[in-house]
């Protein structure tokens, strides 16, 4: 019952919004190239479901590989930066520059670096985008140690390594997952958008561009819906992983 009360309001609002959209488009006679009706998008989605599914798998694979690679790199870099203070100070501006870089703009350049049939450029773009939030959040988590925990471990005569393994790393987990949550959606966005710049025509991004260039707008939108669902899947999977990794957290998002 309580579960229902939590789920019902957003569902009702969502349905109302779609209904309003439908009414506006049909009653206002809005041209489909400006905004197609939800019913038209839905028809396309059902018709193209096999294509959407396959394209989502292709984009999803790139996003997942980028996410894992970028996250592993970000966590390792943060561990190194927190272990060696000097490295931490040097690395932060670098990370900030990396973050300020319009990484999507790198996609065409990366595309030229590799063969046109290669998926590596997209995975790289996703990985680079993932790196920053994971690195920054993990570093903050590793640096913030409860002073009492520090003193306690000192009274236990714990070595630096023991301290890292038993206090620093587990204590940083909530921060790592804050980073991963941001990164999971970003990875999908990056993988999809990176496809706009040519290369393999298998993913959601390339399907959206090709549908749009054929003026098949409802179809383009159907693939956008697919991208949205893919992003949601990534986000929810991260939440689930967080739940499994931190059973002691009473609330999921705090």
């Amino acid at each position, binding site marked *: 019952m309580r579960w229902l009360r939590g789920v019902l309001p957003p569902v009702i609002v969502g349905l109302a919004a779609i209904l309003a959209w439908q009414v506006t488009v049909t009653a206002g006679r809005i041209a489909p190239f400006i905004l197609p009706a939800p019913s038209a998008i839905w028809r396309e989605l059902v018709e193209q479901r096999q294509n959407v599914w396959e394209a989502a798998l292709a984009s999803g694979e790139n996003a997942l590989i980028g996410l894992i690679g970028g996250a592993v790199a970000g966590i390792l870099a943060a561990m190194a930066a927190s272990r060696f203070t000097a490295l931490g100070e040097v690395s932060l501006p670098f990370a900030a520059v990396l973050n300020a870089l319009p990484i999507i703009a790198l996609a065409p350049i990366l595309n030229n670096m590799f063969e046109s049939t290669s998926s590596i450029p997209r995975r790289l773009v996703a990985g680079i985008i993932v790196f920053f939030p994971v690195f920054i959040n993990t570093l903050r988590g590793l640096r913030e140690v*409860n002073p*009492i*925990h520090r*003193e*306690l471990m*000192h*009274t*236990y*005569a*714990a070595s630096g390594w*023991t301290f890292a393994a*038993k*206090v620093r790393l*587990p*204590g940083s*987990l909530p921060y790592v997952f804050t980073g991963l949550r941001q990164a999971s959606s970003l990875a999908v966005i990056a993988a999809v958008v990176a496809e706009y710049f040519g290369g393999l025509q298998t993913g959601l991004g390339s399907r959206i561009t090709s549908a749009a260039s054929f003026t098949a707008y409802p179809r383009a939108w159907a693939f956008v819906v697919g991208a949205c669902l893919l992003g949601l899947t990534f986000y929810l999977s991260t939440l689930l992983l967080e739940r499994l990794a*931190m*059973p*002691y957290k*009473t609330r999921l998002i705090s």
Partner: protein
Amino acid sequence: MTSSAVVVDKVTKVFNQGRADEVTALSEVALTVGEGEFVSLIGPSGCGKSTLLRLIADLIPPTTGTVTVAGQDAGTARKKQAYGIAFQQAGLFEWRTVLRNVELPLELRGLSRGERKTRAEEMLALVGLADFAGHYPAQLSGGMQQRVAIARALAVQPPLLLMDEPFGALDEMTRERLQSELLAICAKTGTSTVFVTHSISEAVFLSDRVVVMSARPGRITAAIEVDLPARDDTARQSEKYFEYVTSVRQALRGVPAAAPS
């Protein structure tokens, strides 16, 4: 009492030495805690009572003077886990269950999994939390968390227990219950205790000796032996108890201490 649990000999502690914000936290402090003795340190904020406790714990080094714990210098004693410590905040590790929190000092001592579990369960039973072994700290009340922290401090069965206002953040009811529990545990285990507090009644109720300190520079101004026939709820109402409370209060105000006859 052939040997002493703690000997603090002419210890001076100066923070930020040689800088503009130099502070003499402790000046020429001498303190001896006998084996099995319960000593409270009481005084106004800034009198260095916590500093003294941290010196005994070897969390900070003295500027001059020596600290001996269980017959060894404080650093060696710390490395041998010759004491257990509890702070005002329970400081539990939120990602570990209650049982695993109590197991932590034992893990660092290299005890086997089975031994750790048995010992930790014993300690939890001692503080009355045997049923909560599988809970996470966030699921416990403040008083229960503090009891876990005490169980953790006692897990290695140290000859000395150091406590820095451990009940300071608790409500009066919980505090009195924990005081009685602590006394029972100390009596059972024979642990010597150094207890920092700013509550006069707490100091008198718990201690064999109340050490009164004053600030700027921190030093010991009086030591009042407390000899109550019993330490229970009736003792809290007894005339003798209030006499001790009065003499500690007077000592804190700088009136020369006159122990009740």
